[in-house]
Each structure stands twice: as C-alpha cells, then as structure tokens.
C-alpha cells in the first residue's frame, strides 16, 4: 500500500470538519467538567450527611464505570424514558460528567489546601459564606489546581474518539467513514494520529506555561 498525497488533500476538508467537532466537544466537555467538578466538591462538603454521602456515592459510581458505557447509556438508553439528545450533546454531557468526578477531586484538594486560618480571618472580617468562598477561598484554591485541571482536559481530548460510538462525527468517526467508503485506511487513520499529536503537543506547551504561571502558591 502506498501513501497517496492526492487522496490526503481530497479528504482534508472532511477531516478538518472532524477536528472542529473534536475540539468543540473537548472545550464544551471541559467547561462542563469544570462546573460539575466544582458542584460535586461543594456538595460533598455539605453539612447535610444525606447530601454529601449520596453525591459522594454517585461520583464514585461514575468514576468506577467506563466512559463508553456511560455514553451508550446517555445516548441509547435515556431515549427510553423520553430524554432524546443529539449525539454531540450526549457526548459532551458524558465527557463533562465523567471528567467532572475527577476534577471534583482536584477542587477538593485545592480547597483543602487553603489554610484554616483563612476561613477564620474571613469570619473575623465578618464576611458572609458566599463572600468567603468567592473573595477568599476560591481565588486561593484555583490557581494551584489549574495545571491539574488542564491535565484532565488533555486526557479528555484524547478520549474523544469514544464519541464515535454514539455517532458523533468527530475526527475518528470521519476518518472511519472515509476509510470504509474508499477502502483506504492508511491516510485517514494516519491523519487522525497526526492531528491528535499536533494538538496534544500544543496543549503540553500550554500546560507547561500554565504550570509556570500558576504552579506555585505564594504564602
């Protein structure tokens, strides 16, 4: 089998469509995971035992089961109870939910790392609970955890091919359909690898920069 540059240029527009969807899914999934992680982390700190326990159990359950199974569940099983989602929406929810249980741990560690004295000083300054969270705790907790969060988002990016299982036309799925209709695998699959490598390398540089920028807390 020989490498055919003409075929490469011919399929490039479709592949770029796939890249676009992959990036969109990653960005939306990351945003959702960032929010869900925060919500899980805060609910697990709830003084209400029932809330903290059940959220903790749900998070463990999601983390302990494969993303692929969750994606199937969201896309193919939820319609049975009347929840019909487009492939991309289902995929983003799956990614966000699954990685949210991981980012929740990052948030937990970040929040626990803020010294108790900061909570006490906030109280002595008579700040309310919301003011304490938004002005004192989170601004100190978030910068050191940015590299860890970014790490999960890069991992998520590399797992987006799973979305092809629920018919999302991301990079891998586009490549597969090109390959299947043209009986040529080498170019599309190589391109998938190349795209992922290039984007991953860019993200790694971004990550290094984030680590330098936020990695250290000043005390």
């Amino acid at each position: 089998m020989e490498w055919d540059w003409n075929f490469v240029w011919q399929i490039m527009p479709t592949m770029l469509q796939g890249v676009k969807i992959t990036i969109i899914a990653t960005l939306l999934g990351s945003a959702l995971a960032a929010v869900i992680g925060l919500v899980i982390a805060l609910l697990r700190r709830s003084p209400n035992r029932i809330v903290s326990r059940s959220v903790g159990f749900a998070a463990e359950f999601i983390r302990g089961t494969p993303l692929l199974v969750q994606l199937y569940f969201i896309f193919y099983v939820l319609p049975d109870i009347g929840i019909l989602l487009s492939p991309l929406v289902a995929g983003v929810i799956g990614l966000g939910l699954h990685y949210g249980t991981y980012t929740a741990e990052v948030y937990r560690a970040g929040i626990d790392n803020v010294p108790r004295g900061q909570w006490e000083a906030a109280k002595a300054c008579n700040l309310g609970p919301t003011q304490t969270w938004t002005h004192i705790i989170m601004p100190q907790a978030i910068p050191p955890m940015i590299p860890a969060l970014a790490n999960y988002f890069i991992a998520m990016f590399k797992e987006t091919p799973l979305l092809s299982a629920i018919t999302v036309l991301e990079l891998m799925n586009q490549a597969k359909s090109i390959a299947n209709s043209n009986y040529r695998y080498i170019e599309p699959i190589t391109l998938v690898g190349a795209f992922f490598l290039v984007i991953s390398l860019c993200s790694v540089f971004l990550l290094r920069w984030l680590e330098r920028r936020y990695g250290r807390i000043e005390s």
Partner: protein
Amino acid sequence: MSAPIIEIDGITKSFGSFKVLDGLSMKVMPGEKLALIGPSGSGKTTILRILMTLERIDGGHIHVEGEQLYHVTRGDDLVPADERHLAKMRQKIGMVFQLFNLFPHKSVIDNVTLAPMLTKGVARAAAEKRAMELLDMVGMADKAKSMPSQLSGGQKQRVAIARALALSPKIMLFDEVTSALDPELVEEVLNVMRRLAEETDMTMLLVTHEMGFAHDFADRVLFFDRGRIVEEGKPDDIFRHPKQERTQTFLRKIIAAGHRV
C-alpha cells in the same frame, strides 16, 4: 459605674473528652485592657476564639453590650443564634491572629479595604482613604501596594492589626500576636499595640506570653489554668505578689525560660 461590655457566665467547652473551659465566668468593662496569661491548654485562647465565634460553646451564656452572643429570644424562648445574629454581633469584635492570616492573594491595602467594602458597603475611595490612615498609624503606609509575601512577619502583623481596625470594632482580641515572630520583630508590633491602647478607648483582650508587655499594657491580668481563672488582679499584684501557688509556679517557669517580667 457603667455596665460590662462583655459578660461571660458559666461557659463550658470541650474538644472531644478534653474539657477546655469548665464553667468559666468573667466580666470586662468598656475600655478595659485585659491580659490573659497561663500555661498552654489552659483555655485562654479558646475564650478569644469563642468571642470571635470561631468556636461554639457547649453551655453557659455570653453577653456583649448587654446582648446575648450565642442566643436569641424567640417568643419566650431562648434559642441558639442564627448566622444573621452572629454576623451582627461580630461587627463589634475584631481579632488579630498568631499567624497573621493575611489574605495572600490581595495587596496590603486590599486586605484592609476588603471587609469594609463588602460588609459595610463603603465606597472604594472612602475605604482606601481610611485604610491609608490606619496603615500610616501602624507604620505600613509605604507598603500599601505590596503583597503580603513581600513583608516580614512583624510587618504582616501590623497590617493584620490595621485590617482588624478597619471595621472599627469596639472589642479587639489579640491572640498571641507576637509568638510567631522573630525576636527582633516583636517590639515593632508591641509598639503599635501600646499606641493603640493609649490613643483609643477600645476594649482589648490580649493572650500573651510576653509578661513584660502584659504588665505594662494591661489594666487587669487574669491567670488561667485548666479552664478556670485561678487568680486575677492588677499587673503589679499578679506579677510581683502572686497569691496562688499555681500562679507562682507558672511565673517562675516563664522567667526561667527567659521571659522578662
């Protein structure tokens, strides 16, 4: 004779099975400067933390300016205070901590302006003007734009004092504020507190191991041991002529450890 500003009546507090405060009662008059001394674990810091509502009491009552701190009346019943009541009561009280607890992500001046702007709705310009006056008073005006990480311990503590003063509390609590400082930095913090004691009529409660400073600063000294007040009186009486044996033993140990009385 005016009414006490703080009235503590039979409070108890345990951490697990360890009884820190055991039916403690005391009164503080407005403007009084009080030094709380005693061995560690004697409950003196716990009293400050309870007054700042950082710890809850297990039993007893506290009145601040005649008002219940931890209880509110609902109908004929006395019920535990809600967060709103505690927030109202906290306005009367400020605290300076052993480990400063400055907000590390905020500049010196933002540390001082944050609470007045958030809790009292003071405009930025007014808050900054007042903050500069306070920073000037503690000798830190030239560091207003610095970050806490650029300051020495003594400087941090002086900023922390300015931050607590910014809310104009009637009662100031100083919890071992020089214990974490290098010896050569202690004096600059004590000087600020001396000025504060001379120039304001704030009520001040001071937990300290600086016996010399307690002697000069306080109107009254309370010696604590095992959650109770063993002896109290004028600084001269406590430091020169302690009556109780436990006070005598404690002061002997402190002097042996190199503290000046």
